[in-house]
């Protein structure tokens, strides 16, 4: 009887006050232990830290990020106080890179783009943790992700998120959309990548 009461109370607490399992604040890896090892071969561990534009530099930093992105933050969820989780990837005690994800609005739902960067900010791996799209299968294919490997913020700086155009001959212009009908989600992926690189630059690689 006591056990029943305890269980019922636990359920009550679940119903009343515990964040739902469907909930996502910021953008975390679903299973960091497994995901870090998979995304960053050669890693032996990781450290987690948290950053937000609000805490790192407030309004001036927001304006700088928006200027570099080429578009103001939009909507209900792309706000100054979104917490970002940064995974510092280790080999022994040596930092061998970073993993960082951002949420991005897609045509049919949320997109979560994670980038694995080396200490110089070069993309080592590209991962859609979540992608609600009719072209999800093609966009999540290894072939699509491979196109981002070796690129860095320098390559994305000239990419215009509003028009979806990159200077001819630039590495970003060479990224192919596997499904032309999914242009919106393709552009969303590039925007998320550029935003991710800018945030890593201001939070970790070249903080103010």
């Amino acid at each position, binding site marked *: 009887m006591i056990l029943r*009461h305890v269980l019922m109370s636990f359920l009550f607490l679940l119903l009343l006050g515990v964040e739902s399992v469907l909930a996502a604040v910021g953008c975390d890896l679903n299973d960091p232990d497994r995901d870090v090892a998979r995304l960053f071969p050669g890693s032996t561990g990781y450290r987690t830290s948290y950053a937000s534009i609000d805490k790192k530099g407030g309004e001036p930093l927001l304006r700088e990020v928006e200027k570099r992105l080429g578009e103001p933050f939009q909507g209900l969820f792309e706000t100054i106080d979104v917490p970002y989780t940064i995974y510092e990837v280790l080999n022994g005690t040596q930092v061998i890179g970073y993993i960082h994800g951002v949420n991005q609005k897609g045509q049919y739902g949320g997109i979560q783009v994670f980038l694995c960067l080396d200490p110089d900010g070069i993309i080592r791996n590209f991962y859609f943790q979540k992608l609600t799209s009719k072209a999800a299968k093609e966009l999540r294919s290894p072939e699509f992700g491979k196109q981002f490997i070796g690129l860095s913020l320098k390559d994305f700086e000239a990419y215009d998120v509003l028009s979806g155009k990159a200077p001819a001959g630039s590495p970003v212009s060479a990224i192919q959309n596997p499904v032309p009908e999914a242009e919106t989600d393709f552009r969303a992926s590039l925007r998320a990548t550029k935003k991710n690189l800018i945030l890593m630059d201001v939070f970790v690689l070249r903080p103010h």
Partner: protein
Amino acid sequence: MISIYTVSYKNLLRKKTRSLLTVVGIGLSAWVLASLLGFNEGYESALNKDIDNMGFQVLLTAKGCPYEAATLMLKGGTGLRYMKESIVDQVLSNEEVEKITPMLMHAVFDPNKGESGGITAYLGVDPATFPAMKSFLEFKQGKWFSEPEAMEAVLGYEAAELEQREVGDILLIPNINAEVKVVGILKRTGTQDDGTIFLPIRTVQRLFEKTGDLTGIGIKVDKNADIAQFEEKLYQLPDVQVVSLAQVKQTILNLVSTAKVMVASIAIVAILIATVGVINTVLMSVFERFQEIGILKSIGAMPLDVFKLIWIETLVLCLLGGGVGIVLALGLSQTTGILIRRLLPYAPTGSLITLNTEIVITTLLTVVLIGLVSGIYPAWRAARVRPLEAIRSEVA
């Protein structure tokens, strides 16, 4: 002729500071007492309100069905069991039922969630009954569905955040590639509703080929009904399980009653301190007026007159202190509630301290009783003073 009450009152005014400090001491004790009684009342009523705000007190599900999202996710979206819609009429035929709302949860495997796929759950709700039953839900954007079978969705705040959806956006249901239009985003509630994607129940039944099936029925029970008896009736229905929040509430109230014992202990200590303070003050006053009491008796005052005089003084002090305490409790109840909430972050919403007439009267009566009891000894000592001894002590 001057009355005994006036004499008592004037006596208290002769030592204003001491009388004032005594009144303040009693006032503080009365404040603590009234606030603690108000907390007992307020906490229970706030908890009741929170449970009422959940919309229904009883949830009926198919036997073995994981009836809430967390369990469903832990089970990997499997194990959903269904009841036939006809059970709604059977439940409604019970006189204890005030309202009901049928629900159908459906979980979809999304291969593009995480490395190896994940589960997204959709809760089909009845647009005619669900919003009315969960009237506390507020919208950040938009509103409920436009039609009972609309291809529309209302998202809890965190579901909307995960899907990055706003009103007017399209949401894709994976696997079946169905598109629904987002018509509402709810404000945060701190409950599992935050992570829920709501669709009209008919739409869920049609999309997932579950016409005539339900996974749960939320039941709001009539306030005067015996919930335990009603639950027994529900168990007579075939293949259902009953999840009762009334039982949960009782468990929580049992836990709270432990806290109440501690609260009562604090109140008793406060009362004891006040009693000792009053005895001390009045006894000091009696000793200081030893010779005066002797003269009163030598000119004809009877022991009972002296007893009454001192007793009334005590009573006046306690009544004044009680009044001060009640004013403090009424004036500072909001502040006290905020302080308690800081100490108890998971306290129910709403006012934690409810001060009603009954509590005010109880506090006043308690304080008066303290006065009557604590005045007995000093009054008895005063009544026993022998006039000649008193006058002689003055000469000495």
